[in-house]
């Protein structure tokens, strides 16, 4: 049996997720030993149009991206979105709430007319996605788990409960008890609540759970003296695309 062929593509993103894959070390030897990587701009020269699994990083931010991702979708048997930009739109979508022309000029200066950008969106807004590896950046262990499941023909386990679950298992002091705000109660778990463990709070990089209680989130923000406007900003940091849709 020949090994499944894997191609890695990037759209609008910081390549942080690809870096996580490069950094896989032992885990990567095991799993990547079972596949053949045929296209990966960040780590190799060769390119191939024949692949089974496409790993896609980054958001879709212009018409040209759409054509490219559709072509990838047609060739790939399995398409996996990796990282917040690809799974939920992520940081890129902050600009969706600003004037597009202004943003374009701000980023590309006098070359702005070369780039026909539009509102940023996740990969799933353009083509069907078979699995998401959430996070900004992705969690390496989770990436390996998802890839493994897909190679074994199983449905990958992607939690649909809040970060608070991971946080309790990690034995953290809930930051709410210390009078700080946290997006954990509406954010999808799977990261082990690493930010809280390290002394920060959750800013929601993995996107919201399927059925987030936004009424409760607003109430919670209010209790911490955070205004509706600031609250929206907090949600839009990563989930601007989802927020527009709601």
């Amino acid at each position, binding site marked *: 049996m020949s090994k499944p062929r894997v191609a890695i593509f990037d759209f609008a993103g910081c390549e942080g997720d690809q870096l996580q894959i490069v950094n896989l070390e032992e885990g990567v030897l095991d799993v990547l030993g079972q596949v053949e990587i045929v296209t990966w701009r960040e780590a190799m020269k060769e390119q191939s149009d024949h692949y089974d699994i496409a790993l896609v990083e980054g958001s879709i931010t212009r018409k040209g991206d759409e054509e490219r991702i559709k072509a990838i979708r047609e060739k790939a048997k399995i398409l996996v979105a990796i990282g917040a930009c690809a799974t939920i739109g992520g940081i890129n979508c902050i600009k969706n709430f600003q004037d597009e022309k202004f943003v374009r000029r701000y980023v590309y200066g006098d070359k702005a007319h070369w780039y026909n950008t539009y509102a940023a969106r996740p990969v799933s807004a353009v083509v069907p996605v078979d699995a998401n590896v959430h996070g900004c950046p992705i969690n390496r262990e989770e990436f390996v788990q998802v890839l493994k499941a897909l190679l074994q023909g199983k449905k990958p386990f992607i939690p649909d*409960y809040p970060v*608070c*679950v991971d946080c*309790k*298992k990690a034995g953290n002091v809930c930051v709410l*008890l210390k009078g700080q705000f946290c997006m954990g*109660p509406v954010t999808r778990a799977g990261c082990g609540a690493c930010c809280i463990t390290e002394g920060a709070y959750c800013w929601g990089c993995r996107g919201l*759970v399927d059925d987030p209680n936004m009424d*409760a*989130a607003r109430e919670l923000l209010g209790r911490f003296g955070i205004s509706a406007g600031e609250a929206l900003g907090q949600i839009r940091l990563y989930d601007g695309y989802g927020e527009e849709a709601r």
Partner: protein
Amino acid sequence: MGGDMNLAIIEKEGLHLFVAELLRRKNTVVGVKDQSAVSSIPGDSGFYTYAPINSPEELTLSFDVTLIPPKKYLLPAYEQLLTFNLSPGSIKADAPKEELIVFGVHPYDIIAINQMDKVFSTVPQDNHYLERRKRTTIIGVDPVKIAPRAFWSSMGADTVAGGFDLMLTDIGQCYVMEVGSKKGASLLKMAPKTREAAPAEVKERDKVRTEARKRCDANRLSFSYLELPSLLDGKEEHVIWEEKSHLCFSCGTCNLVCPTCYCFDVRDDVSIDLKKGSRYRTWDGCLLSDFAQVAGGGNFRGHRADRYRHRFYRKGQFIYRRFGDIACVGCGRCSAQCPSDIADPIAVFNRLKEGI
């Protein structure tokens, strides 16, 4: 030191030496620490956590309540159960081997452990749990500080008759130490500077306990906890479930921090070449949205209010019918840690009792 003592006195200095002796004999001792000693994150002080101790100085006996109950040593957040080979097929169960002394467990948490013992020894018995339990020594301590949300005094959980190996009560200049098992009796022999308790000292212990119970009564169930099963009868459609769960995040905190909640999920991790793998379990909770989801996507409790209500019925009625226990010991952890502050059992039960 006399022969067999059921109620002994140990001086404070003696207790210190006792802990040092346990550590010297290479026992793994887990005790309550201020969380700031565990996490080093600024602002984490004033919260208590069970963690291994290396010296008697690290041990706190005057804590109010820990964030996570001692169940984490009997039913760990993640626990590997077995490993397997697929070709040729074979299975090897993991057997917990560690001996543990948990030093400083409040009576309500011991009652919760006694309840878990009952649940996990009922057929089909849970060998992993029972093995860990057998290897765990429990040294109880009566609370001197009362957690702001605690209400154990009205849940019949202010004192406990069994389930501990030793039980300590701080009566001022020394501790009364009650022996609860053979294991406890032999541990006591290791403790220096002990003597039999005098009747006045036993009376002093009663006084200390009564005093603590009174302070805990600041939050209380407005009726006898034994009425709970009948109170809940016919309250399934009460407005309170919808009303309160409106702010429920389905975050499971109220389950995971509860000393009587024992639910877990079992998952397999199969190696990439499909040759071997392992099975592990991890904490689960009935408030999580996919808890009652079954193959095919159906969900028995797809609505927040259904899940929210389910927990109160389990605490006050279901477990009682099955095992004869009220599955809330009044530790107040769920009340204090719920992000929306809607999980407090006394708020719900007292309102149902008022009938409004």
